[in-house]
Protein backbone atom coordinates (compact mmCIF):
# COMPACT_ATOMS: atom_id res chain seq x y z
CA UNK A 1 0.00 0.00 0.00
CA UNK A 2 1.19 3.46 -0.82
CA UNK A 3 2.59 5.19 2.30
CA UNK A 4 1.30 8.52 1.03
CA UNK A 5 -2.20 7.42 2.04
CA UNK A 6 -0.99 7.29 5.63
CA UNK A 7 0.25 10.86 5.36
CA UNK A 8 -3.21 11.92 4.21
CA UNK A 9 -4.79 9.95 7.04
CA UNK A 10 -2.46 11.63 9.53
CA UNK A 11 -3.36 15.06 8.18
CA UNK A 12 -7.05 14.23 8.55
CA UNK A 13 -6.52 13.01 12.12
CA UNK A 14 -4.50 16.12 12.95
CA UNK A 15 -7.27 18.35 11.61
CA UNK A 16 -9.93 16.47 13.55
CA UNK A 17 -7.83 16.88 16.69
CA UNK A 18 -7.28 20.59 16.12
CA UNK A 19 -11.00 21.13 15.47
CA UNK A 20 -11.80 19.14 18.59
CA UNK A 21 -9.60 21.44 20.69
CA UNK A 22 -11.31 24.47 19.23
CA UNK A 23 -14.97 23.43 19.46
CA UNK A 24 -15.30 21.03 22.41
CA UNK A 25 -16.05 22.39 25.88
CA UNK A 26 -15.05 19.52 28.17
CA UNK A 27 -11.43 19.74 29.32
CA UNK A 28 -10.98 15.96 29.06
CA UNK A 29 -12.23 15.89 25.47
CA UNK A 30 -10.04 18.88 24.58
CA UNK A 31 -7.09 17.04 26.04
CA UNK A 32 -7.99 13.86 24.14
CA UNK A 33 -8.04 15.94 20.96
CA UNK A 34 -4.51 17.16 21.72
CA UNK A 35 -3.43 13.54 22.15
CA UNK A 36 -5.03 12.76 18.79
CA UNK A 37 -2.91 15.51 17.23
CA UNK A 38 0.25 14.04 18.79
CA UNK A 39 -0.62 10.60 17.49
CA UNK A 40 -1.38 12.00 14.04
CA UNK A 41 2.17 13.38 14.10
CA UNK A 42 3.42 9.94 15.14
CA UNK A 43 1.67 8.35 12.20
CA UNK A 44 3.19 10.93 9.87
CA UNK A 45 6.66 10.27 11.32
CA UNK A 46 6.35 6.51 10.82
CA UNK A 47 4.96 6.87 7.29
CA UNK A 48 7.71 9.33 6.36
CA UNK A 49 10.30 6.97 7.86
CA UNK A 50 9.06 4.35 5.46
CA UNK A 51 9.15 6.76 2.52
CA UNK A 52 12.57 8.17 3.40
CA UNK A 53 14.04 4.76 4.07
CA UNK A 54 15.63 5.59 7.43
CA UNK A 55 14.74 4.90 11.03
CA UNK A 56 14.77 8.44 12.44
CA UNK A 57 11.02 8.82 12.20
CA UNK A 58 10.34 5.57 14.03
CA UNK A 59 12.73 6.60 16.80
CA UNK A 60 10.91 9.90 17.14
CA UNK A 61 7.58 8.07 17.43
CA UNK A 62 8.84 6.17 20.48
CA UNK A 63 10.00 9.34 22.18
CA UNK A 64 6.72 11.07 21.43
CA UNK A 65 4.78 8.23 23.06
CA UNK A 66 6.79 8.70 26.26
CA UNK A 67 6.36 12.47 26.19
CA UNK A 68 2.63 12.09 25.56
CA UNK A 69 2.36 9.76 28.56
CA UNK A 70 4.12 12.33 30.74
CA UNK A 71 1.79 14.99 29.41
CA UNK A 72 -1.22 12.86 30.37
CA UNK A 73 0.06 12.67 33.95
CA UNK A 74 0.45 16.42 34.24
CA UNK A 75 -2.72 17.24 32.31
CA UNK A 76 -5.00 14.91 34.22
CA UNK A 77 -3.57 16.17 37.51
CA UNK A 78 -4.50 19.72 36.57
CA UNK A 79 -7.91 18.82 35.14
CA UNK A 80 -8.82 16.65 38.16
CA UNK A 81 -7.81 19.46 40.54
CA UNK A 82 -10.01 21.90 38.66
CA UNK A 83 -12.85 19.38 38.63
CA UNK A 84 -12.63 18.84 42.39
CA UNK A 85 -12.65 22.58 42.99
CA UNK A 86 -15.45 23.47 40.63
CA UNK A 87 -17.37 20.20 40.23
CA UNK A 88 -17.17 20.67 36.48
CA UNK A 89 -14.68 19.96 33.74
CA UNK A 90 -16.02 22.62 31.38
CA UNK A 91 -13.34 24.92 30.06
CA UNK A 92 -15.86 27.78 29.85
CA UNK A 93 -16.48 27.91 33.55
CA UNK A 94 -13.07 28.99 34.89
CA UNK A 95 -13.36 32.63 33.82
CA UNK A 96 -11.98 34.63 36.72
CA UNK A 97 -8.94 35.75 34.76
CA UNK A 98 -9.93 38.35 32.21
CA UNK A 99 -9.08 41.92 31.34
Amino acid at each position, binding site marked *: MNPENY*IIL*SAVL*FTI*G*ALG*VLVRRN*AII*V*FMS*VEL*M*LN*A*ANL*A*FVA*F*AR*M*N*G*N*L*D*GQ*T*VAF*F*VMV*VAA*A*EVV*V*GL*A*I*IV*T*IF*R*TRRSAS*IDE*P*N*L*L*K*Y
Partner: protein
Amino acid sequence: MSRMPLIDPVLPAFTTPSINYYAIAPILIVFGAAVVSVLVEAFVPRRGRRVTQLVLVIASIVAAFAVTLDLRGTRLVTGEGAIAVDGPTLVMWGALLLISLLAAFLMAERTIDPLGDAFAARASSLPGSEDERQFAARGYLQTEVWPFLLFALTGMLAFVAANDLLMMFVALEVMSLPLYLLAGMARRRRLLSQEAALKYFLLGAFSSAFFLYGAALIYGYSGSIGFVAISDTLTAKTAEGSLLAIGLALLMVGLLFKVAAVPFHQWTPDVYQGAPSPVTGFMAATVKIAAFGAILRLLYVAFGGMRWDWQPMLWIIAALTMLVGSIIAITQSDMKRMLAYSSIAQAGFILVGVIVATPQGLGASLFYLIAYGFTTIGMFAVIMMVRNASGEATSLAEWRGLGRKSPLVAGVFSLFLLSLAGIPLTSGFVGKFAVFAAAIDAGAVWLVIIGVVASIIAAFFYVRVVVLMHFADPTEETASVAIPSAFTTVTLTAATVMTIALGIFPQWLLDVIEQAGVFIR
Protein backbone atom coordinates in the same frame (compact mmCIF):
# COMPACT_ATOMS: atom_id res chain seq x y z
CA MET B 1 1.02 -11.60 -3.65
CA SER B 2 4.47 -11.27 -2.16
CA ARG B 3 4.81 -10.07 1.39
CA MET B 4 6.57 -6.77 1.76
CA PRO B 5 9.50 -6.69 4.16
CA LEU B 6 8.75 -4.73 7.30
CA ILE B 7 11.76 -2.51 6.88
CA ASP B 8 13.99 -2.03 3.91
CA PRO B 9 17.09 -4.24 4.07
CA VAL B 10 19.38 -1.33 3.12
CA LEU B 11 18.71 0.48 6.39
CA PRO B 12 21.85 1.21 8.39
CA ALA B 13 22.27 -0.53 11.73
CA PHE B 14 22.01 1.45 14.95
CA THR B 15 25.40 2.58 16.22
CA THR B 16 26.23 3.59 19.74
CA PRO B 17 26.17 7.38 19.87
CA SER B 18 29.34 9.09 20.95
CA ILE B 19 28.65 11.69 23.59
CA ASN B 20 31.03 14.25 25.03
CA TYR B 21 29.76 14.09 28.58
CA TYR B 22 31.78 17.02 29.85
CA ALA B 23 30.38 19.38 27.22
CA ILE B 24 26.82 18.63 28.30
CA ALA B 25 27.70 18.43 32.01
CA PRO B 26 25.63 21.52 32.94
CA ILE B 27 22.48 19.78 31.67
CA LEU B 28 23.45 16.52 33.35
CA ILE B 29 24.25 18.17 36.70
CA VAL B 30 20.91 19.96 36.86
CA PHE B 31 19.07 16.87 35.64
CA GLY B 32 20.85 14.65 38.17
CA ALA B 33 20.00 17.08 40.95
CA ALA B 34 16.36 17.04 39.79
CA VAL B 35 16.25 13.25 40.05
CA VAL B 36 17.92 13.29 43.47
CA SER B 37 15.48 15.96 44.53
CA VAL B 38 12.56 13.64 43.72
CA LEU B 39 14.21 11.01 45.94
CA VAL B 40 14.58 13.62 48.68
CA GLU B 41 10.82 14.07 48.56
CA ALA B 42 10.40 10.34 49.05
CA PHE B 43 12.96 9.62 51.74
CA VAL B 44 13.93 12.72 53.73
CA PRO B 45 11.69 13.49 56.75
CA ARG B 46 9.33 16.41 56.26
CA ARG B 47 11.25 18.76 58.57
CA GLY B 48 14.52 18.46 56.71
CA ARG B 49 13.17 18.62 53.19
CA ARG B 50 13.15 22.35 52.61
CA VAL B 51 16.77 22.78 53.69
CA THR B 52 17.94 19.71 51.78
CA GLN B 53 16.16 20.82 48.62
CA LEU B 54 17.51 24.35 48.87
CA VAL B 55 21.08 23.13 49.30
CA LEU B 56 20.62 20.75 46.37
CA VAL B 57 19.16 23.42 44.09
CA ILE B 58 21.75 26.07 44.89
CA ALA B 59 24.69 23.65 44.78
CA SER B 60 23.64 22.12 41.46
CA ILE B 61 23.02 25.47 39.78
CA VAL B 62 26.34 26.87 41.02
CA ALA B 63 28.17 23.71 39.92
CA ALA B 64 26.53 23.84 36.49
CA PHE B 65 27.47 27.50 36.18
CA ALA B 66 31.08 26.74 37.10
CA VAL B 67 31.24 24.06 34.40
CA THR B 68 29.67 26.46 31.90
CA LEU B 69 32.40 28.99 32.68
CA ASP B 70 35.04 26.31 32.27
CA LEU B 71 33.56 25.29 28.91
CA ARG B 72 34.03 28.76 27.39
CA GLY B 73 35.47 28.61 23.93
CA THR B 74 33.95 25.17 23.33
CA ARG B 75 32.48 24.64 19.86
CA LEU B 76 31.31 21.14 19.21
CA VAL B 77 28.35 19.02 18.24
CA THR B 78 27.81 15.89 20.27
CA GLY B 79 25.30 13.10 20.76
CA GLU B 80 25.27 12.22 17.03
CA GLY B 81 24.33 15.77 16.09
CA ALA B 82 21.58 16.13 18.70
CA ILE B 83 23.29 18.72 20.90
CA ALA B 84 25.37 21.70 19.88
CA VAL B 85 27.56 23.33 22.52
CA ASP B 86 28.83 26.59 21.04
CA GLY B 87 29.26 30.21 22.06
CA PRO B 88 25.58 31.27 21.99
CA THR B 89 24.61 28.08 23.84
CA LEU B 90 27.09 28.80 26.61
CA VAL B 91 26.02 32.44 26.94
CA MET B 92 22.39 31.36 27.25
CA TRP B 93 23.28 28.56 29.67
CA GLY B 94 25.04 31.08 31.90
CA ALA B 95 22.11 33.51 31.79
CA LEU B 96 19.52 30.76 32.38
CA LEU B 97 21.45 29.37 35.35
CA LEU B 98 21.99 32.75 37.02
CA ILE B 99 18.39 33.87 36.55
CA SER B 100 17.08 30.51 37.76
CA LEU B 101 19.21 30.88 40.87
CA LEU B 102 17.66 34.29 41.53
CA ALA B 103 14.19 32.81 40.89
CA ALA B 104 14.98 29.97 43.30
CA PHE B 105 15.71 32.57 45.98
CA LEU B 106 12.30 34.13 45.35
CA MET B 107 10.66 30.72 45.64
CA ALA B 108 12.45 30.15 48.94
CA GLU B 109 11.20 33.43 50.41
CA ARG B 110 8.80 32.94 53.32
CA THR B 111 9.01 35.95 55.58
CA ILE B 112 7.09 38.30 53.28
CA ASP B 113 3.82 36.43 53.69
CA PRO B 114 2.86 35.68 57.32
CA LEU B 115 1.35 32.39 56.10
CA GLY B 116 4.60 31.07 54.63
CA ASP B 117 6.06 30.81 51.14
CA ALA B 118 4.22 31.58 47.92
CA PHE B 119 3.00 28.01 47.41
CA ALA B 120 -0.03 26.14 48.74
CA ALA B 121 0.63 23.95 51.76
CA ARG B 122 -0.83 21.06 49.74
CA ALA B 123 -1.68 21.85 46.14
CA SER B 124 -4.02 18.84 46.09
CA SER B 125 -6.24 20.08 48.94
CA LEU B 126 -9.49 21.77 47.97
CA PRO B 127 -9.39 25.57 48.16
CA GLY B 128 -11.29 26.73 51.25
CA SER B 129 -11.63 23.21 52.68
CA GLU B 130 -10.89 21.91 56.18
CA ASP B 131 -7.98 19.91 54.71
CA GLU B 132 -6.38 23.07 53.45
CA ARG B 133 -6.65 24.75 56.86
CA GLN B 134 -5.20 21.71 58.61
CA PHE B 135 -2.24 21.42 56.25
CA ALA B 136 -1.51 25.14 56.56
CA ALA B 137 -1.86 25.06 60.35
CA ARG B 138 0.65 22.22 60.57
CA GLY B 139 3.08 24.24 58.51
CA TYR B 140 3.29 21.80 55.62
CA LEU B 141 5.26 23.02 52.61
CA GLN B 142 4.86 21.87 49.03
CA THR B 143 8.57 21.14 48.60
CA GLU B 144 7.89 19.47 45.23
CA VAL B 145 8.34 22.91 43.70
CA TRP B 146 12.11 22.37 43.84
CA PRO B 147 12.23 19.28 41.62
CA PHE B 148 9.86 21.11 39.26
CA LEU B 149 12.22 24.07 39.12
CA LEU B 150 15.19 21.81 38.34
CA PHE B 151 13.34 19.79 35.70
CA ALA B 152 12.14 22.96 34.00
CA LEU B 153 15.70 24.30 34.05
CA THR B 154 16.98 21.01 32.56
CA GLY B 155 14.51 21.41 29.73
CA MET B 156 15.58 25.00 29.09
CA LEU B 157 19.28 24.14 29.05
CA ALA B 158 18.61 21.33 26.57
CA PHE B 159 16.25 23.55 24.55
CA VAL B 160 18.89 26.15 23.70
CA ALA B 161 21.43 23.44 22.85
CA ALA B 162 19.07 21.24 20.82
CA ASN B 163 20.41 20.64 17.34
CA ASP B 164 17.75 18.32 16.00
CA LEU B 165 13.96 18.38 16.01
CA LEU B 166 13.50 15.42 18.36
CA MET B 167 15.82 16.88 21.01
CA MET B 168 14.05 20.19 20.64
CA PHE B 169 10.60 18.65 21.10
CA VAL B 170 11.60 16.62 24.15
CA ALA B 171 13.34 19.64 25.69
CA LEU B 172 10.28 21.79 24.98
CA GLU B 173 8.09 19.38 26.91
CA VAL B 174 10.55 18.88 29.77
CA MET B 175 10.65 22.64 30.13
CA SER B 176 6.89 23.15 29.90
CA LEU B 177 5.35 20.35 31.94
CA PRO B 178 6.79 21.44 35.33
CA LEU B 179 5.82 25.03 34.59
CA TYR B 180 2.17 24.07 33.98
CA LEU B 181 2.13 22.53 37.45
CA LEU B 182 4.04 25.36 39.14
CA ALA B 183 1.53 27.86 37.75
CA GLY B 184 -1.27 26.13 39.65
CA MET B 185 0.29 25.99 43.10
CA ALA B 186 -0.28 29.47 44.56
CA ARG B 187 -1.03 29.72 48.28
CA ARG B 188 -3.48 32.59 47.91
CA ARG B 189 -6.12 33.14 45.23
CA ARG B 190 -5.99 29.45 44.44
CA LEU B 191 -8.91 29.46 42.03
CA LEU B 192 -7.10 31.98 39.84
CA SER B 193 -3.94 29.94 40.06
CA GLN B 194 -5.63 26.68 39.10
CA GLU B 195 -7.40 28.39 36.24
CA ALA B 196 -4.06 29.73 35.03
CA ALA B 197 -2.59 26.23 35.14
CA LEU B 198 -5.49 24.80 33.12
CA LYS B 199 -5.28 27.49 30.46
CA TYR B 200 -1.51 27.29 30.26
CA PHE B 201 -1.59 23.52 30.00
CA LEU B 202 -4.31 23.15 27.37
CA LEU B 203 -2.94 25.89 25.13
CA GLY B 204 0.67 24.79 25.69
CA ALA B 205 -0.13 21.19 24.79
CA PHE B 206 -2.06 22.41 21.73
CA SER B 207 0.92 24.45 20.53
CA SER B 208 3.44 21.65 21.11
CA ALA B 209 1.24 19.37 19.01
CA PHE B 210 1.60 21.92 16.19
CA PHE B 211 5.37 21.92 16.72
CA LEU B 212 5.46 18.14 16.51
CA TYR B 213 3.41 17.94 13.34
CA GLY B 214 5.63 20.59 11.80
CA ALA B 215 8.64 18.47 12.74
CA ALA B 216 7.03 15.48 11.03
CA LEU B 217 6.49 17.44 7.80
CA ILE B 218 10.06 18.76 7.83
CA TYR B 219 11.27 15.21 8.35
CA GLY B 220 9.16 14.16 5.41
CA TYR B 221 10.69 16.86 3.26
CA SER B 222 14.34 16.43 4.17
CA GLY B 223 14.53 12.84 5.34
CA SER B 224 16.32 13.86 8.51
CA ILE B 225 15.60 15.56 11.81
CA GLY B 226 19.09 17.07 12.23
CA PHE B 227 19.36 20.80 11.63
CA VAL B 228 22.52 20.53 9.55
CA ALA B 229 21.02 17.82 7.36
CA ILE B 230 17.85 19.89 6.89
CA SER B 231 19.98 22.85 5.87
CA ASP B 232 21.90 20.67 3.39
CA THR B 233 18.63 19.46 1.87
CA LEU B 234 17.51 23.04 1.39
CA THR B 235 20.57 23.73 -0.73
CA ALA B 236 20.39 20.42 -2.58
CA LYS B 237 16.71 20.53 -3.50
CA THR B 238 15.88 23.50 -5.66
CA ALA B 239 12.10 23.02 -5.67
CA GLU B 240 10.49 24.24 -2.48
CA GLY B 241 7.83 21.77 -1.47
CA SER B 242 4.64 22.69 0.34
CA LEU B 243 5.78 20.23 3.04
CA LEU B 244 8.67 22.54 3.80
CA ALA B 245 6.62 25.74 4.00
CA ILE B 246 3.79 24.26 6.07
CA GLY B 247 6.26 22.38 8.26
CA LEU B 248 8.26 25.49 9.10
CA ALA B 249 5.08 27.46 9.77
CA LEU B 250 3.83 24.81 12.20
CA LEU B 251 7.21 24.64 13.96
CA MET B 252 7.14 28.40 14.41
CA VAL B 253 3.60 28.28 15.85
CA GLY B 254 4.90 26.04 18.62
CA LEU B 255 7.92 28.22 19.35
CA LEU B 256 6.23 31.62 19.00
CA PHE B 257 3.62 30.45 21.47
CA LYS B 258 6.35 30.02 24.07
CA VAL B 259 7.74 33.53 23.57
CA ALA B 260 4.18 34.96 23.59
CA ALA B 261 4.24 36.54 20.14
CA VAL B 262 0.99 37.89 18.71
CA PRO B 263 -1.25 36.10 17.62
CA PHE B 264 -0.15 33.30 19.96
CA HIS B 265 -0.16 35.45 23.09
CA GLN B 266 -3.64 34.88 24.52
CA TRP B 267 -2.44 32.71 27.40
CA THR B 268 0.15 35.19 28.66
CA PRO B 269 -1.90 37.69 30.70
CA ASP B 270 -3.97 34.98 32.36
CA VAL B 271 -1.00 32.85 33.30
CA TYR B 272 1.14 35.78 34.46
CA GLN B 273 -1.68 37.01 36.66
CA GLY B 274 -2.77 33.66 38.07
CA ALA B 275 0.58 31.99 38.72
CA PRO B 276 2.44 32.62 42.00
CA SER B 277 4.72 35.65 41.52
CA PRO B 278 8.06 33.82 41.95
CA VAL B 279 6.94 31.36 39.27
CA THR B 280 5.76 34.16 37.00
CA GLY B 281 9.14 35.84 37.37
CA PHE B 282 10.99 32.60 36.69
CA MET B 283 8.83 31.79 33.70
CA ALA B 284 8.77 35.28 32.24
CA ALA B 285 12.54 35.60 32.33
CA THR B 286 13.84 32.14 31.51
CA VAL B 287 11.26 30.76 29.09
CA LYS B 288 11.75 33.84 26.94
CA ILE B 289 15.52 33.22 26.81
CA ALA B 290 15.17 29.49 26.18
CA ALA B 291 12.49 29.80 23.50
CA PHE B 292 14.30 32.59 21.67
CA GLY B 293 17.49 30.53 21.86
CA ALA B 294 15.65 27.68 20.16
CA ILE B 295 14.07 29.99 17.55
CA LEU B 296 17.45 31.52 16.73
CA ARG B 297 19.13 28.16 16.27
CA LEU B 298 16.27 26.68 14.27
CA LEU B 299 16.02 29.65 11.91
CA TYR B 300 19.75 30.33 11.55
CA VAL B 301 21.16 26.80 11.42
CA ALA B 302 18.39 24.73 9.84
CA PHE B 303 16.46 27.30 7.80
CA GLY B 304 19.07 29.98 7.19
CA GLY B 305 19.01 29.01 3.51
CA MET B 306 15.39 30.04 3.10
CA ARG B 307 15.48 33.23 5.13
CA TRP B 308 13.80 35.13 2.28
CA ASP B 309 10.74 32.98 2.91
CA TRP B 310 10.49 33.27 6.69
CA GLN B 311 11.59 36.87 7.07
CA PRO B 312 8.35 38.44 5.70
CA MET B 313 6.26 36.15 7.89
CA LEU B 314 8.20 37.06 11.04
CA TRP B 315 8.26 40.69 9.96
CA ILE B 316 4.46 40.84 10.25
CA ILE B 317 4.45 38.92 13.52
CA ALA B 318 7.10 41.19 15.05
CA ALA B 319 5.24 44.35 14.04
CA LEU B 320 1.94 42.99 15.38
CA THR B 321 3.57 41.79 18.60
CA MET B 322 5.20 45.14 19.34
CA LEU B 323 2.06 47.16 18.60
CA VAL B 324 -0.59 44.91 20.13
CA GLY B 325 1.47 44.31 23.29
CA SER B 326 2.16 48.01 23.81
CA ILE B 327 -1.34 49.23 23.03
CA ILE B 328 -3.26 46.71 25.14
CA ALA B 329 -0.86 47.23 28.07
CA ILE B 330 -2.09 50.83 28.31
CA THR B 331 -5.61 49.65 29.14
CA GLN B 332 -4.60 47.31 31.97
CA SER B 333 -5.43 48.00 35.60
CA ASP B 334 -3.62 45.01 37.12
CA MET B 335 0.14 45.17 37.58
CA LYS B 336 0.87 41.55 36.66
CA ARG B 337 -1.40 41.70 33.62
CA MET B 338 0.25 44.91 32.52
CA LEU B 339 3.66 43.27 32.82
CA ALA B 340 2.33 40.34 30.78
CA TYR B 341 1.42 42.65 27.89
CA SER B 342 4.74 44.42 28.38
CA SER B 343 6.48 41.05 28.01
CA ILE B 344 4.55 40.51 24.78
CA ALA B 345 5.79 43.86 23.47
CA GLN B 346 9.35 43.00 24.54
CA ALA B 347 9.09 39.70 22.62
CA GLY B 348 8.33 41.80 19.55
CA PHE B 349 11.46 43.92 20.07
CA ILE B 350 13.60 40.80 20.41
CA LEU B 351 12.01 39.37 17.25
CA VAL B 352 13.34 42.40 15.38
CA GLY B 353 16.83 41.22 16.30
CA VAL B 354 15.98 37.66 15.25
CA ILE B 355 14.62 38.66 11.84
CA VAL B 356 17.74 40.38 10.56
CA ALA B 357 19.59 37.03 10.50
CA THR B 358 23.09 38.48 10.83
CA PRO B 359 25.73 37.79 13.52
CA GLN B 360 25.05 41.33 14.72
CA GLY B 361 21.33 40.55 15.10
CA LEU B 362 22.13 37.36 16.99
CA GLY B 363 24.38 39.23 19.44
CA ALA B 364 21.84 42.02 19.90
CA SER B 365 19.06 39.51 20.61
CA LEU B 366 21.22 37.72 23.17
CA PHE B 367 22.06 40.97 24.94
CA TYR B 368 18.42 42.03 24.95
CA LEU B 369 17.31 38.67 26.35
CA ILE B 370 19.82 38.78 29.19
CA ALA B 371 19.02 42.38 30.08
CA TYR B 372 15.29 41.64 29.95
CA GLY B 373 15.68 38.50 32.07
CA PHE B 374 17.43 40.20 34.97
CA THR B 375 15.07 43.19 34.95
CA THR B 376 12.01 40.94 34.90
CA ILE B 377 13.05 38.77 37.81
CA GLY B 378 13.65 41.96 39.82
CA MET B 379 10.19 43.30 38.98
CA PHE B 380 8.48 40.22 40.26
CA ALA B 381 10.57 40.37 43.43
CA VAL B 382 9.11 43.84 44.03
CA ILE B 383 5.60 42.65 43.19
CA MET B 384 5.97 39.94 45.85
CA MET B 385 6.85 42.57 48.45
CA VAL B 386 4.04 45.05 47.79
CA ARG B 387 1.12 43.68 49.79
CA ASN B 388 -2.12 44.39 51.54
CA ALA B 389 -3.98 42.30 54.11
CA SER B 390 -5.15 39.71 51.59
CA GLY B 391 -1.84 39.10 49.84
CA GLU B 392 -0.08 40.75 46.95
CA ALA B 393 -1.54 44.09 45.93
CA THR B 394 -1.55 43.86 42.16
CA SER B 395 -4.18 46.45 41.32
CA LEU B 396 -2.60 49.62 39.98
CA ALA B 397 -4.77 51.72 42.33
CA GLU B 398 -2.98 50.10 45.25
CA TRP B 399 0.39 51.28 43.95
CA ARG B 400 -0.67 54.93 44.02
CA GLY B 401 1.74 56.97 46.10
CA LEU B 402 3.93 53.99 46.96
CA GLY B 403 7.01 56.17 46.43
CA ARG B 404 5.99 58.33 49.39
CA LYS B 405 5.61 55.32 51.67
CA SER B 406 8.64 53.30 50.52
CA PRO B 407 10.96 55.42 48.38
CA LEU B 408 13.61 52.73 48.02
CA VAL B 409 11.42 49.90 46.75
CA ALA B 410 9.39 52.21 44.52
CA GLY B 411 12.63 53.71 43.22
CA VAL B 412 14.04 50.31 42.32
CA PHE B 413 10.77 49.37 40.61
CA SER B 414 10.86 52.63 38.66
CA LEU B 415 14.38 51.77 37.54
CA PHE B 416 13.13 48.44 36.17
CA LEU B 417 10.19 50.12 34.43
CA LEU B 418 12.45 52.71 32.84
CA SER B 419 14.80 49.94 31.74
CA LEU B 420 11.94 48.12 30.00
CA ALA B 421 10.88 51.43 28.46
CA GLY B 422 14.42 51.81 27.08
CA ILE B 423 15.55 54.97 28.88
CA PRO B 424 19.32 55.63 28.56
CA LEU B 425 21.71 54.47 31.31
CA THR B 426 19.66 51.32 31.82
CA SER B 427 20.20 47.87 30.34
CA GLY B 428 16.96 48.09 28.34
CA PHE B 429 18.25 51.08 26.39
CA VAL B 430 21.44 49.29 25.34
CA GLY B 431 19.41 46.23 24.35
CA LYS B 432 16.93 48.21 22.27
CA PHE B 433 19.69 50.24 20.68
CA ALA B 434 21.63 47.11 19.74
CA VAL B 435 18.57 45.42 18.26
CA PHE B 436 17.46 48.44 16.26
CA ALA B 437 21.01 49.19 15.07
CA ALA B 438 21.34 45.61 13.82
CA ALA B 439 18.00 45.92 12.01
CA ILE B 440 19.00 49.25 10.38
CA ASP B 441 22.28 47.72 9.19
CA ALA B 442 20.34 44.88 7.62
CA GLY B 443 18.01 47.32 5.86
CA ALA B 444 14.84 46.68 7.87
CA VAL B 445 14.14 50.39 8.25
CA TRP B 446 10.35 50.12 8.32
CA LEU B 447 10.48 47.51 11.04
CA VAL B 448 12.65 49.83 13.14
CA ILE B 449 10.21 52.69 12.59
CA ILE B 450 7.35 50.50 13.82
CA GLY B 451 9.56 49.42 16.71
CA VAL B 452 10.30 53.00 17.72
CA VAL B 453 6.61 53.92 17.54
CA ALA B 454 5.79 50.90 19.70
CA SER B 455 8.55 51.89 22.14
CA ILE B 456 7.01 55.33 22.52
CA ILE B 457 3.57 53.81 23.17
CA ALA B 458 5.15 51.39 25.64
CA ALA B 459 7.06 54.19 27.36
CA PHE B 460 3.70 55.83 28.05
CA PHE B 461 2.41 53.06 30.28
CA TYR B 462 5.76 52.41 31.95
CA VAL B 463 6.17 56.07 32.82
CA ARG B 464 2.54 56.26 33.90
CA VAL B 465 3.28 53.74 36.66
CA VAL B 466 6.39 55.70 37.68
CA VAL B 467 4.32 58.87 37.91
CA LEU B 468 1.57 57.05 39.79
CA MET B 469 4.05 55.82 42.38
CA HIS B 470 6.05 58.98 42.91
CA PHE B 471 3.87 61.96 42.11
CA ALA B 472 0.48 60.89 43.47
CA ASP B 473 -0.51 61.03 47.12
CA PRO B 474 -1.08 57.73 48.90
CA THR B 475 -4.70 56.82 49.55
CA GLU B 476 -6.42 54.52 52.02
CA GLU B 477 -5.91 51.51 49.79
CA THR B 478 -2.24 52.09 48.99
CA ALA B 479 -0.39 48.87 49.75
CA SER B 480 2.53 48.58 52.11
CA VAL B 481 5.91 46.99 51.48
CA ALA B 482 6.75 43.85 53.45
CA ILE B 483 10.27 43.44 54.82
CA PRO B 484 11.85 40.54 52.91
CA SER B 485 14.42 38.03 54.11
CA ALA B 486 17.93 37.78 52.70
CA PHE B 487 16.68 35.64 49.79
CA THR B 488 14.57 38.30 48.12
CA THR B 489 17.06 41.01 49.04
CA VAL B 490 19.81 39.17 47.17
CA THR B 491 17.62 38.73 44.09
CA LEU B 492 16.49 42.32 44.12
CA THR B 493 20.03 43.62 44.59
CA ALA B 494 21.42 41.41 41.84
CA ALA B 495 18.67 42.47 39.42
CA THR B 496 19.23 46.14 40.23
CA VAL B 497 22.99 45.88 39.86
CA MET B 498 22.66 44.09 36.52
CA THR B 499 20.11 46.61 35.22
CA ILE B 500 22.39 49.54 36.04
CA ALA B 501 25.68 47.81 35.19
CA LEU B 502 24.47 46.65 31.77
CA GLY B 503 23.18 50.16 31.16
CA ILE B 504 26.34 52.07 32.06
CA PHE B 505 29.09 49.50 31.34
CA PRO B 506 27.53 47.17 28.75
CA GLN B 507 30.83 46.55 27.02
CA TRP B 508 31.92 43.50 29.02
CA LEU B 509 28.75 41.59 28.16
CA LEU B 510 28.91 42.77 24.55
CA ASP B 511 32.49 41.44 24.46
CA VAL B 512 31.43 38.10 25.92
CA ILE B 513 28.67 37.82 23.31
CA GLU B 514 30.98 38.86 20.50
CA GLN B 515 33.58 36.27 21.51
CA ALA B 516 30.82 33.69 21.68
CA GLY B 517 30.43 34.11 17.92
CA VAL B 518 27.73 32.42 15.92
CA PHE B 519 26.01 29.05 15.95
CA ILE B 520 28.07 26.03 14.99
CA ARG B 521 26.89 24.27 11.86
